[in-house]
């Protein structure tokens, strides 16, 4: 049974696109057939993070409007043959997405893939609502910081009211994914703790992604971090989160400030 998962947050810059790429690639590496869909019409970036920016011919809006077939718009990843990208359009605005059109595309993707991962645009407007509309599950990307948590709370409200699942009276499965977590700062109480965040949002935890320079390196290279540096602590945390999405029971580890001697000598921060 195909699953449609929306990666959302409300706030911008918290790591939705990074998360979409990392979890999409991790699921594909686990043997699932996966498509990552960019819903950020007008400001697409998932193509860049996936390293496919030179290969975009058609996009989601073309497919929604029927000017291209789904087959023609899907871009197959060069590293993993069961990972595909459906890019967003750059020249249109978010109103180009109609609910009926998006439904047709999502239904077709459901029939072809095990996982359909929708990368939501920031905000709570039409684009974000279209990205979550047909989802079965939601991953709410949150930084341990007040404005991000507040926006996540608003998004949770929309997930529980504006999605098809909610309107049918079914439960939308929601998970919080905490990104850019800095163990040292949390230990000094400079950052909201995991418990604080979960307590406020009263949602289960999918994973804790430590702050890592590897995230920037991966986007520089145009590769999901789970493929670019699989041994990196953030990549490992993403892979564990992906396994939890698959239903595995993976114990949660709190990323601590584990720096090697060499890192300390060189004055480098967490990997």
């Amino acid at each position, binding site marked *: 049974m195909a699953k449609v998962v929306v990666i959302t947050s409300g706030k911008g810059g918290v790591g939705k696109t990074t998360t979409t790429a990392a979890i999409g690639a991790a699921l594909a590496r686990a043997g699932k057939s996966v498509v990552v869909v960019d819903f950020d019409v007008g400001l697409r970036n998932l193509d*860049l993070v996936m*390293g496919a*920016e*030179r*290969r*975009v*011919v*058609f996009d989601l809006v073309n497919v929604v409007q029927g*000017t291209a*077939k789904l*087959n*023609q718009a899907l871009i197959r990843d060069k590293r993993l043959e069961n990972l595909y990208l459906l890019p967003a359009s*750059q*020249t249109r605005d978010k109103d180009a997405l109609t609910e009926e059109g998006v439904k047709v595309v999502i239904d077709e993707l459901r029939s072809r893939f095990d996982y359909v991962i929708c990368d939501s645009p920031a905000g709570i407007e039409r684009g974000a609502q279209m990205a979550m509309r047909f989802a079965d599950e939601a991953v709410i990307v949150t930084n341990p910081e007040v404005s991000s948590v507040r926006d996540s709370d608003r998004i949770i409200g929309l997930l529980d009211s504006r999605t098809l699942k909610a309107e049918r009276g079914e439960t939308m499965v929601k998970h919080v994914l905490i990104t850019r977590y800095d163990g040292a700062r949390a230990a000094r109480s400079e950052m909201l703790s995991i418990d604080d965040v979960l307590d406020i949002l009263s949602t289960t935890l999918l994973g804790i992604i430590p702050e890592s320079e590897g995230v*920037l*390196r991966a*986007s*520089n*290279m*145009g590769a999901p971090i789970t493929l670019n540096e699989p*041994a990196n602590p953030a990549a490992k945390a993403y892979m564990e989160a992906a396994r939890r999405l698959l239903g595995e029971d993976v114990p949660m580890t709190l990323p601590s400030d584990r720096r*090697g001697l*060499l*890192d300390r000598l*060189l004055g480098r921060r967490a*990997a």
Partner: protein
Amino acid sequence: MTNLLDFFKRRGSAPVARERLQVLLAYERNNRNQPDLVAVLREEIMAVIARHMQIDQDDVQISMDRGETTSTLEIDIQFPNAA
């Protein structure tokens, strides 16, 4: 040991990012407010082919790889052999 390797590898990524962005932005700036060349080419090529044979849109695969100096546009059309 991996830390040490990482340390040397680490220098690599920013120049790669810079080059990727330069190629991409050069293309995007040029094409802002212009009709999508690929879409135009596709329409016209399809029209020419349709004059000579029946083709289904499903049987046309179009892929592109944009490079710094040259790009490739690959159009793969499957059509039935003449009876």
